[in-house]
């Protein structure tokens, strides 16, 4: 093993030199992973907007699910206010699942996922960008819609910032967990039920902390601690989920 302390003039492996210190043959400077991720994000957003009708589906689903609870329980706002955190979160969880099945499926079918795996760019980075697009199209709108649903369930107006914050942060973790599930079930036909079976147990900690944060916000109490735990889950997800997602995609491309 060579001397681990680098001296000036030593060859260091990087974009221009490979591990042996010999020049990596390029003729042009490559795109950085950040630029490639940016291109991927932009492409996925552009694709989503070309199918504008499908964009609102998770939101409509969210609205319908939250409507089910007053119909099934009671129209009394005092009772609904008690169950509001749970209702909002279960609805958000199920809605964010909707678009997951298709996160990678189109790309797997038309061969572009394969090209991403062969691009020479970090696959986890590119898939993270796709997951980011999913969050921007699903999680963030849900976070903005959740207070409306909450108000319909009798929550006080002062709790709106807390609801937005908790659903926004929690949905980041949900998108990341969902991307792992979507990648893992890529090889399964009609994977909807299996995808939920795999993703929902992993999402339970997010549900626990998120619902608690929302509940405290509704009661007007400080919701910092559960929100921080939610944030920790999101950070953990950002660090680890893309690796698992890329591994699962590579296995499914074999």
């Amino acid at each position, binding site marked *: 093993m060579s001397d681990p302390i680098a001296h000036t003039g030593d060859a260091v492996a990087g974009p221009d030199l490979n591990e042996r210190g010999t020049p990596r043959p390029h003729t042009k400077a490559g795109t950085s992973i950040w630029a490639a991720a940016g291109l991927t994000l932009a492409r996925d957003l552009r694709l989503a907007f070309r199918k504008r009708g499908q964009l609102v589906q998770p939101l409509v689903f969210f609205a319908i699910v939250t409507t089910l609870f007053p119909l099934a329980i009671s129209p009394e706002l005092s009772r609904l206010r008690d169950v509001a955190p749970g209702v909002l979160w279960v609805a958000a969880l199920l809605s964010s699942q909707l678009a997951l099945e298709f996160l990678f499926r189109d790309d797997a079918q038309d061969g572009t996922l394969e090209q991403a795996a062969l691009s020479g760019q970090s696959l986890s980075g590119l898939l993270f960008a796709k997951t980011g697009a999913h969050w921007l199209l699903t999680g963030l709108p849900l976070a903005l819609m959740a207070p409306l649903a909450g108000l319909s369930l009798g929550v006080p107006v002062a709790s709106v910032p807390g609801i937005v914050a908790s659903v926004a942060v929690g949905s980041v973790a949900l998108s990341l967990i969902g991307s*792992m599930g979507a990648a*893992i*079930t890529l*090889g*399964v036909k009609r*994977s909807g039920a*299996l995808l939920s*079976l*795999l993703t*929902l*147990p*992993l999402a*339970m*900690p997010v549900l*626990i*902390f998120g619902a*608690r944060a929302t509940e405290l916000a509704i009661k007007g109490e400080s919701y910092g601690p559960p929100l921080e*735990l939610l944030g920790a*889950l999101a950070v*953990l997800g950002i660090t*680890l989920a893309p690796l*698992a997602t890329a*591994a*699962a995609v590579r*296995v*499914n491309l*074999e």
Partner: protein
Amino acid sequence: MSWTWFHRLGSPPYIYNLAARLTPWFAWPAALLMLGGLYDGLVLSPPDYQQGDGFRMMYVHVPTAYLSVMIYTTMAICAAVGLIWRIKVAHAVAASCAPIGASITLCALVTGSLWGAPMWGTYWEWDPRLTSELILLFLYLGYMGLRSATEDVQRADRISAVLAIVGVVNVPIIHFSVVWWNSLHQGSTLLRADGPAIATSMLIPLLMMLLGFTLFFVAVLLVRLRGEILSRERSASWIREAVTP
């Protein structure tokens, strides 16, 4: 360091025969320990001053609960070994673990529910231990569901390995979040920092059961593993010699 033992460990016929030879070494001690532990725990040791005879369910519940997590971890480690070093036998071990782990988790849930029923007044309470066990059962079922939904055995091995690794990382997170969420269950009496808080007369049969159950798991695993290897290698030439008497 000689790598031949490592290579042999990766060879299906070697493992097939090794498993057959090892099984009795685990099965008999397991039977003795479990019978002895049960006798000691159910008959010999005195009733608990608080819970009367009901606490005796602990002798089955605690080993099964501990084992349910240990089996999942073993499954995930073997799956990871198979994924990273591409050793097929490791995948066979992981596949064999899953149904055993799921059944043991179910036992843990049932015994936990029966144990708690006299105290709670109902057969189910959302206490952190049982809730974590339930979620663990879902993880096992998801793993088994993914395997059965994937047609190609090799791909099933590799993709369920990714799932198992993701699951095992999540087990502590899930457990922490569930404990955080609620606590009705009495604190863990075996794993307290200042030493076991239960009487020696209860501790000894418990340890016997723990060890007995663990050996039982290994014995059952070895038997399942042989079946799993037979099924995977059915078209290989060594099978005919191995199976004909």
